[in-house]
């Protein structure tokens, strides 16, 4: 094992991560170098340290013993949070990286051993997502200073760093397995393969949401405590147990759990290396071909009012959504959020909880439409040249892109409304109102998102898919959420709370009027934007 090679490979992978964004694409800029992350970590840790010290000192003066309470709650969580956040971020961003940019193809012919690549990649992942740990360590240091729990803090810090690496090893394991799956299904467009991949990612996202959600972990630690509880059998929580035991003064248990965590890390490393060596190879796909029946593409889409040209564009985009690995999270995340959020609705809270449920339904459906529409043009990537070089009028592109989002998100809104209605036991008028507000949210988001997409889409091939420029994505997300709150909020109260009476009617009129204005402006802006986009290809 050559440590120098590992370091160089890790540097390359970190640079790939940093330079995948437009802002840092200049390799000579400060933001394009790994040291930028280090500086960011230090600044974040210092800021968290100062802020936490100020809060803990202040609260401790009001409530003596607050510092010890904070130490008992925060320090044990550091290792668990480190693993969880790397794992969730890794699944969202690392697994969608194309093999070309992850240098995975290159390592098949470079003189690198599997363990060298796994360690380099893990260090790169851990370093890239170290900001959250830096914040936690800064806050933890302040608590340690306030309480004198230096030994516990040092243990938490060490296990936190180890937690980052554990998360990285897990990502490498998942990546090796998914690489093999992708290699096996490569070249196939079979429905069964696609369905299996989508179901697999859905299960993985749901499992990660439930297993590594920091809020859930906090509940476990806060409510059941860790003394001899069932959580001791969850390996990923051994680090947390170690810190908690050390904090109680039970150094033996602390040492045992710490040793177990180190052993777990070694085991995960060994497994990741083994999986990589075994699976990360090019495999020849076995193809079973049947003669293609040439004919108009996706004629069934004509039933939804699309013309032949638009139906073809919509059909192509649908195939892209289902077949492209990087698009899967976009499609599935709303379903995951919907499932998790639906369980969080409380039907026992009575009528007062209905407006919240209506608002939640509208927001989730609207955000789904927003993500689909903001990415709808950028997902063409280099293939956008087809739309420029062939006789495709801009209006057809507009109708196809908006139509697909309305179709998918509208269906989702209807299903979600049904689920909310069943969960909350809504009557028919309220259910219809919930559905109408969700559909209005979908229409608003579709055109607003498309207006952004027409102006700020990014068609370049990048390591991590970036369909809209980052600042535009941020503006579209925040702006979209604000507009949704402003329109769906009044509608939700008008629909969900009959006790409002005349004020409810005012709310309804205000919400409906505002939604109509937003839809109209968004439609005009999106259509004009698409016209301008296809007047000349961006250089």
């Amino acid at each position: 094992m050559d440590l120098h090679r590992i370091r160089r490979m890790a540097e390359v992978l970190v640079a790939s991560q940093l330079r995948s964004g437009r802002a840092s694409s200049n390799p000579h800029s400060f933001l394009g170098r790994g040291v930028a992350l280090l500086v960011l970590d230090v600044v974040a840790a210092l800021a968290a340290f100062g802020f936490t010290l100020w809060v803990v000192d202040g609260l401790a003066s009001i409530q003596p013993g607050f510092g010890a309470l904070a130490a008992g709650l925060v320090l044990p969580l550091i290792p668990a949070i480190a693993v969880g956040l790397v794992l969730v971020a890794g699944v969202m961003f690392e697994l969608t990286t194309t093999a070309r940019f992850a240098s995975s193809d290159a390592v098949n012919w470079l003189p690198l051993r599997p363990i060298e690549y796994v360690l380099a990649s893990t260090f790169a992942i851990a370093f890239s997502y170290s900001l959250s740990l830096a914040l936690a360590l800064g806050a933890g240091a302040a608590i340690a200073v306030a309480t004198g729990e230096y030994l516990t803090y040092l243990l938490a810090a060490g296990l936190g760093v180890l937690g980052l690496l554990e998360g990285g090893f897990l990502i490498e394991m998942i990546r090796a397995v998914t690489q093999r799956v992708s290699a096996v299904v490569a070249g196939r467009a079979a429905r069964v393969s696609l369905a299996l991949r989508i179901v697999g990612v859905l299960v993985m996202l749901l499992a990660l949401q439930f297993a590594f959600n920091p809020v859930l972990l906090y509940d476990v630690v806060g409510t059941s405590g860790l003394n001899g509880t069932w959580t001791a059998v969850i390996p990923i929580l051994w680090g947390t147990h170690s810190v908690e035991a050390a904090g109680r003064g039970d150094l033996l248990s602390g040492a045992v759990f710490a040793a177990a965590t180190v052993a777990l890390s070694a085991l995960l490393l060994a497994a990741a290396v083994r999986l990589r060596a075994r699976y990360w190879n090019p495999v020849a796909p076995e193809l079973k071909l049947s003669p293609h029946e040439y004919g108009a593409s996706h004629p069934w889409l004509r039933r939804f009012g699309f013309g032949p040209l638009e139906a073809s564009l919509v059909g192509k985009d649908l195939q892209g959504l289902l077949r492209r690995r990087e698009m899967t999270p976009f499609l599935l995340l709303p379903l995951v959020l919907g499932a998790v959020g639906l369980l969080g609705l409380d039907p026992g809270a009575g009528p007062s909880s209905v407006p919240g449920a209506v608002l939640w339904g509208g927001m989730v459906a609207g955000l789904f439409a927003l993500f689909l529409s903001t990415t709808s043009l950028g997902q063409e990537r280099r293939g956008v040249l087809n739309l420029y070089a062939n006789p495709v009028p801009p209006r057809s592109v507009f109708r196809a892109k908006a139509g697909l989002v309305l179709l998918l998100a509208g269906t989702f809104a209807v299903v979600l409304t049904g689920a909310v209605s069943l969960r909350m036991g809504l009557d028919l008028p309220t259910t219809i109102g919930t559905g109408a507000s969700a559909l209005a949210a979908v229409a608003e988001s579709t055109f607003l998102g498309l207006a952004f997409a027409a102006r700020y889409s990014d068609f370049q091939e990048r390591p991590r898919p970036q369909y809209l420029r980052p600042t535009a994505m941020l503006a579209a997300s925040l702006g979209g959420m604000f507009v949704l709150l402003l329109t769906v909020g009044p509608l939700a109260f008008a629909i969900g709370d009959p006790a409002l009476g005349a004020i409810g009617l005012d709310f309804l009129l205000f919400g409906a009027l505002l939604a109509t204005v937003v839809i109209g402006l968004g439609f005009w802006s999106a259509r004009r934007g698409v016209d301008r986009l296809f007047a000349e290809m961006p250089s």
Partner: protein
Amino acid sequence: MEPLASYPSGEPLRPTPLPLPSSGVPPGPSVPGTVALEVEHVTKLFGPVRALSDVSFRVPAGQIVGLLGPNGAGKSTMMKAILGILRPEAGSIRVFGREVRDQAVEIRREVGFVPETPALYEFLTGAEYLDFIADLYGMEPGVRRARIEPFLHALELVGHEDALISGYSHGMKQKVALTAALIHRPRLLILDEALNGFDPRSARIVKDLLRRLTGEGVGVLFSTHVLEIADAICDRIVILDRGQVRAEDTMAALRARGGTAAVGLEELFLTLTGTGDLPEVVRGLSP
């Protein structure tokens, strides 16, 4: 299905039974003197960079015009401007007499374009992509197989058409792009390094195909770095360098300009583009 052409080793070439244009869309005008493409005084700026500067040339119907130039000369920019993908700051581009600036979408119905790097949708299969392109041109489902399959056979894509494009080699992608550019029977073909990645057999088929197309009245603008190909198949040559036309003429006229009929296109090219100092460069590289 019979292939477009086959070339058994050592045997003379057989005539290529091309699918063009026997029925359906009427062929382009083969009237002598018809101009397929007219580029007049075109200037294109990218910020401070003058990518094209007062460029003028013509592609007569039924001729292959080679667009030559070193890397960064402006060839791809010129081709995109012809398609209306880029808008020049000045000048006029007309395809069969129609101004591109005003009728870009309509003109594209008569043009076939193969970009330097194939920009295909890699999540589609080759057949699905060609079906998609046929949709964009409003091609009737009934005629698609007859239009597409001869190309698949000739370019040896049969057996791969139901595999995802992401699994294709560069050459296979280029062949799909070429097929997509031809199935609607264009009257003007714009080929940007279209033979990159082609195996010798396929390259030969395409060269013969281009000859046959010009016989049917199709105009071809053909950009290449391979001067031997340009020398062999082009009727006229336009040499572009740093956004300006350095020469435009028939091969014979260009040779005459070089002072001797024996002078090769390479020497002419190097002289006209100011890169004739090669011996010194090579000497500098020698250990």
